[in-house]
């Protein structure tokens, strides 16, 4: 049993104060904490008062002990949180006017929640050049709060082992080895880093200026590439796809992770080369010409019916598709078997 803000809670050995508080709906702010990665206690915004402790403790790292008494909302806690957030704010270029994360930035939310008008310190961004080296992941280290989530996502979730801290003291920064841009590093562009970044330091480049978070329509679906079947959110605005993101809440099979194809490989959907009208080649030596659905159906049905009559059902074959849905594959083989009258149906599973 422990007590948090006057409420008695039963807790398991090894559970952190943060876990325990969240389990009974008590909000403790966090920045560096990220589910399924090591607790590092780097940012300290999750500090709480523990009776008989020498100082405030980081609730994300502190395991509970019997009869512990915790307070999450004392003036000392709030003062500490404000100081931390003001220091973070003033040490970066957190300009929400042009930031893609505006509206879903965890630092912005925390500033608002702590009711900070402006920081007590002069704002002195480090002045890093942004990494515009590629078309997928945009990095602006001036917005980085050094929480290390991207590093843990890269090393502990995806195990790609590309990102780490480099330099020392106030020069510390996050990035690939030898301070390379992403495109010149061993990065495989899974994009886990941008998904876990709490601020606008790592963002989806192709979504830049394509829509504010609150303007986007989010639809959960299944990735269309390999057989893993990753669950993903596709975001669209005014009928245009803006970006794709994983979602840890969706559980199996991918637990919120994606790869480069799922996250950055969806341009094909709205590519100008998409077929928009049926095409018919009336004579073998002619070109394909645009036609109506009715003309296309009539052409196909006439030909199929006459071939079936002349040379039999088994002179017709169909290839269904490992790319199409179950419903479509079911209907396709039903059509070939029940309507054409043959079992000549296969797909490219073998290839």
């Amino acid at each position, binding site marked *: 049993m422990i007590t948090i803000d006057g409420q008695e809670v039963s807790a398991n050995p090894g559970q952190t104060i943060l876990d325990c508080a969240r389990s009974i709906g008590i909000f403790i702010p966090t920045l560096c904490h990220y589910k399924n990665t090591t607790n590092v206690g780097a940012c300290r915004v999750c500090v709480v008062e523990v009776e008989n402790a020498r100082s405030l403790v980081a609730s994300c790292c502190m395991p509970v002990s019997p009869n512990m008494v915790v307070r999450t909302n004392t003036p000392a806690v709030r003062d500490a949180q404000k100081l931390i957030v003001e220091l973070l704010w003033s040490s970066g270029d957190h300009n929400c006017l042009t930031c893609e994360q505006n509206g879903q930035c965890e630092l912005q939310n925390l500033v608002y929640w702590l009711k900070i008008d402006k920081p007590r310190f002069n704002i002195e961004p480090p002045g890093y050049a942004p990494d515009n080296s590629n*078309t997928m992941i945009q990095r602006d280290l001036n917005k980085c709060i050094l929480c290390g989530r991207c590093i843990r996502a890269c090393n502990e979730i995806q195990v790609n082992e590309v990102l780490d801290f480099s330099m020392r003291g106030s020069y510390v920064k996050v990035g690939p080895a030898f301070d390379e841009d992403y*495109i010149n590093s061993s990065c*495989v562009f899974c994009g886990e880093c941008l998904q876990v970044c709490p601020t606008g330091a790592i963002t989806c480049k192709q979504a830049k200026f394509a829509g504010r978070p609150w303007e986007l329509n989010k*639809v959960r*679906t299944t*990735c*269309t590439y*390999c*057989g*893993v*079947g990753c669950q993903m959110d*596709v975001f669209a605005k005014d009928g245009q796809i803006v970006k794709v993101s994983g979602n840890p809440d969706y559980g*199996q*099979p*991918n637990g919120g992770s994606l*790869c*480069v*194809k799922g996250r*950055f490989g*969806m341009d*094909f*959907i709205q590519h100008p*080369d*998409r*077929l928009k009208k049926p095409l018919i*080649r009336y004579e073998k030596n002619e070109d394909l010409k645009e036609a109506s*659905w009715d003309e*296309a159906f009539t*052409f*196909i*049905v006439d*030909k*199929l019916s006459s*071939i079936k009559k002349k040379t039999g*059902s088994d*002179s*017709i*074959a169909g*290839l*269904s*598709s*490992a*790319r*199409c*849905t*179950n419903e*479509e*594959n*079911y*209907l396709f083989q039903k*059509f070939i*078997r*029940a*309507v054409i009258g*043959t*079992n000549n*149906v*296969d*797909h490219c599973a073998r*290839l």
Partner: protein
Amino acid sequence: MAGLAASFGSGAMTNSIDELEYTDLILAAGTNTTENHPVIGMKVKRAVKQHGTKLIVIDPRGIDLVKYADIWLCQKPGTDVAVFNGLMNVIIAEGLHAKGYIAERTEGFDALKTAVTKYTPEYVEKISGVSAEDLKKAARLYAKANKASIIYAMGITQHISGTDNVKSTANLAMLCGNIGIEGGGVNPLRGQNNVQGACDMGGLPDVFPAYQQVANEDARKKFETAWGATLSGKHGLTIVEIMNAAGRGDIKAIYIMGENPLISDPDLHHIKKELQKLDLLVVQDIFLTETAEFADVVLPSASFAEKDGTFTNTERRVQRIRKVVNAPGEAKPDWEIIAGISTKMGYPMNYSSAKEIFEEIAKVTPSYAGISYERIEKEGIQWPCPTPEHQGTKFLHKEKFSRGLGLFHAIEYIPPAELPDKEYPLILSTGRVLYHYHTGTMTRRAVGPSERCPESLIEIHPDDAVKFGVNDGQMVKVTSRRGTVEAKAQITQKSPQGTIFMNFHFAEAAVNLLTNPVLDPIGKIPEYKVCAVKLEAA
């Protein structure tokens, strides 16, 4: 798939993706997991780095997973059966096999034991190049793990001995009692989003949905009643047989939904000629693919983001897709197109939604009977799921195998159909790279992946580069008995000496102009992983 069905009674992945992360040992054979199934690759790496899982990699190429492996068995391409028989030889010789499990749950062990007797580590070393010591170490490591999972992909199946290779993985797993337990299994990783579903739905020439045989009269009667039609009991033709029959004039019309065989099939020249002989070629696709360009009618279909439906992933999990945006122009979902043609042919298909079709699927497909759109709204369900109360099945063959007893197959090693000789001194192996997908129609239109991987590269070992006088980044010409392609050379240790690797994503360097169309006699899968080629500067 045929291999696993023969051994266990079911061709699907036996266990679940998530179990890989918490098992004692993973044996990865013929799968470049981190590039072809990156999210599964991620779980394998996490298992090794964070959960103490041992990893054995069997692969001729120095793929990324090798960095994480306890043991890497680098065999000559196409010698997998010898390696697996060698592993089993050691396990049996040292008495490490699961004797109780074998007696209770399997049959055919004596024949297997006799067959593997001659595959001593020394004999296997001669065939495969894998050192006898490494083979012994790997055999002991696998046999001593409490639960061990085998994962494999096209590196196992795309050989003339593909079905034999699969049966060999099944033999090894049963030998150590690894089937029917959590964290164990033989797990084929499916390369395409809905291969599993397309098979489950009866997109195969010999079976109705849920693998009910067309030759079985009861099954046929059931579907004749359900569909109100007379059905044929004669096995149909497989994809490569269809193409050959078209060449002979026996097939007059082919209707292709969402496939691009002009890039993905072996020996492209041959396929092109055959498609030209058809009276009718209908291609239904989202782009004017290389195959669609040959068609008499091209029908524009909706992409996955423009329609509702379900995909079944590699671990048998049936999951929803949902419409995000409208399809461009007049493009329609594939199911609407099929229903339209069928209705016009006098067999009305009046479905109002994908959901309505799924409800019909559940009625005739016993393994899907308990699944509904409502149930998979939040999380997909793994078949078999026979009733609406059933929670789905995490791993198969728990108390008994689908076929009753697990069947060991005695298998002899046969070499690949085309081996290097004086004129064609190198082996060509083909596959995918991380940034692209299959025939490239989708990823090559994606800015990001194309930026990272803009062109086809031929991976060549440094010693071979010296031998054939080619430099990194130079255009080179690869020639087989069937054709020639040109692409840039990439000099890398990833390729073993004597073997070059090419991907099949780029139509301008269509590697299937080179590949050998010889098929595995049972699985009918072409031998994409081994053919003989020569290499010269272009």
